[in-house]
């Protein structure tokens, strides 16, 4: 049986005046129905561009230059633009980061939810209204009848994000792409919104792609994780295996930089340096210049994604030449002095 969404070797370039920016470089991923996967990476790692490529909503002048997107095993990349757009929008919905800008400021929120049922699914006015109220109820909005008539700026951030999810659900999708859906919310509301997404995933067998830079958010919700760096996947695998035994120094460094409230001495570890310039990538591993464990071999060729361990159900892949030394990396629960110069500590 084919997966709900399969992406093979997707590459997106953005032609700029001073060269081509390789925003996404050969990303492959897979989502099954009812499964939540997480995509982690820092700003500029290509997460958002990849999501927008999946929906065919790339900003000008970005182009998909290679790879394929398969929906239920059906290739959509080769379809003519109109049919591809129809196929994608029918099956896939998106939840955006900033719920204030993701809602039309001059339209009542209920009308925005009822719009697709009314105008694309061909429901009557009353049926679409009822559907919108039902959706608002299902994402945990109290008094949906009354809130139907509210404008976006009259609702709180958490309520707005629920509206955003209700709009995403209104197309009756099988896959939801969520781009940093909780970043603009405070922590208690984050948990509620994640809970809503997770419940819906379970109830309706929705596929969920959760993009975030927040490992805590991802680890709460997702069963598999893809770590992106400089436009490619550098490590992927089952959530617990990957977080417990990272086999790529970038994942390792990300985990290091999560503040540990139990640590006796609170030190915030950061990854030194900047992500590479995607218009002029260095030869070799793009993380090598920032990596604490890089050797000369790392600067020679970009390492391929290779299976490293099979822990439990999902194979763990890492794009690191030196993944097998991971066992000797300083444990992240006890930051030692040795890694300080490279995985530097800033007070």
């Amino acid at each position, binding site marked *: 049986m084919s997966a709900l969404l399969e992406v093979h070797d997707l590459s997106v370039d953005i032609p700029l005046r001073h060269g081509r920016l390789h925003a996404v470089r050969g990303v492959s991923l897979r989502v099954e129905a009812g499964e939540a996967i997480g995509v982690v990476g820092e700003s500029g790692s290509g997460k958002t561009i990849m999501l*927008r490529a999946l*929906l065919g*909503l790339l*900003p*000008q002048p970005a182009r998909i230059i290679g790879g394929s997107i398969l929906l239920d095993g059906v290739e959509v990349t080769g379809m003519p633009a109109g049919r591809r*757009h*129809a196929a994608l*929008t*029918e099956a*896939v*919905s*998106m939840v*955006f*980061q*900033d719920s204030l*800008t*993701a*809602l*039309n*400021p*001059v*339209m009542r929120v209920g009308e925005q939810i009822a*719009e*697709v049922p009314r*105008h*694309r699914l061909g429901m009557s006015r009353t049926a679409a209204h009822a559907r919108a109220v039902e959706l608002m109820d299902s994402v*945990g909005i*109290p*008094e949906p009848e009354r809130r139907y008539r*509210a404008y976006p*700026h*009259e*609702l*709180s*951030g*958490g*309520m707005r994000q629920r509206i*955003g999810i209700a*709009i*995403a659900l*209104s*197309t009756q999708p099988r896959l939801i792409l969520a781009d940093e859906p909780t970043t603009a919310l*405070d922590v*208690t*509301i984050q948990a*509620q919104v994640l809970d809503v997404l997770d419940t819906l995933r379970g109830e309706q067998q929705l596929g969920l792609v959760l993009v975030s830079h927040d490992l805590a958010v991802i680890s709460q919700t997702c069963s598999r994780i893809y770590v992106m760096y400089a436009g490619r996947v550098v490590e992927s695998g089952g959530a617990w295996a990957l977080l417990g035994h990272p086999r790529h120094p970038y994942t390792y460094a990300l985990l290091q930089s999560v503040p540990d409230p139990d640590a006796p001495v609170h030190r915030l570890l950061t990854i030194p340096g900047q992500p590479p310039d995607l218009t002029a990538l260095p030869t070799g591993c793009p993380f090598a210049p920032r990596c604490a464990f890089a050797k000369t071999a790392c600067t020679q060729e970009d390492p391929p994604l290779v299976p490293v361990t099979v822990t439990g159900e999902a194979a763990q892949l890492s794009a690191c030449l030196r993944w097998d030394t991971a066992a000797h990396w300083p444990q992240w629960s006890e930051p030692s002095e040795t890694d300080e110069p490279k995985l530097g500590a800033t007070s």
Partner: protein
Amino acid sequence: MTAVAFPGRTVEVATARRPHRHVNIPLIAGLTLLLLIVLAAICAPLLTHWDPIHQDLLHAREAPGSPGHLLGTDQLGRDVLSRLLYGARIDLRVGVLAVLSPFVIGTLLGLVSGWFGGWLDTLIMRIVDVVVAFPFFVLVIALVFALGAGTSSIYLAITMVGWVAYCRIVRGAVLVAKEQEYALAARASGLPTWRILFRHLLPNVVLQAIVYSMSDIVLTILAIVTLGYLGLGVPPPTPDWGSMIEDGQQFLLTQWYLATIPGIAVVITGFALALIADGLVEQFGRR
């Protein structure tokens, strides 16, 4: 400001922000002033018993305040007040109508141009560039001259020149709005393009065009007045402020009020519209 929802139970903390209800002075003042002008124009027959084109050469060029003529009479003995009031009917009507069609055409083309981009955008924008390359008045005067004097040529000429401003304003706003997440969300939900354009984008970009249209009405009235002054406007003897100023200017040294009174009328109308534009921005501008 947050609503905290516990499972099954809701503790609600004022979610609806109270709409700020402060008094919008410019808008109210502008609307009142414009309403007064429009009322005066509509009620012209009630406010004066003079026929605006009735000549009385025996009582020509009488000073304001002379018996029966509150604002005096012009060089042909026509009552200035009644000409002013009936002139307002013509000038306001032409001004509003001559702004309406460029508004609609420019907004639609700007919407399409900004949304679709590509060759269509290039084509429309090149046409805009060509029109903009000529000074507004020069082009309007040349067009009216070519089309022949009269109100219909004025409409046509001002439409042909005026739409470019709306097109540029709306296109710029669309370019910003279409990268907003709500526009992406509308595209992602697979709504038909016309619906995204008219239901989602138009209401968000049209305000800037409306605000501009207020000052555009002033500009248009000014253009009509100018055309009237050049003898290309509303044909005589129909009263309009432009031809009144033109007729009056030769008596500027002796009967200065003949040209000044209609001039003041233009200024007051422009002031009212400018106030409305300011008030609209204050009312609906960025939240």
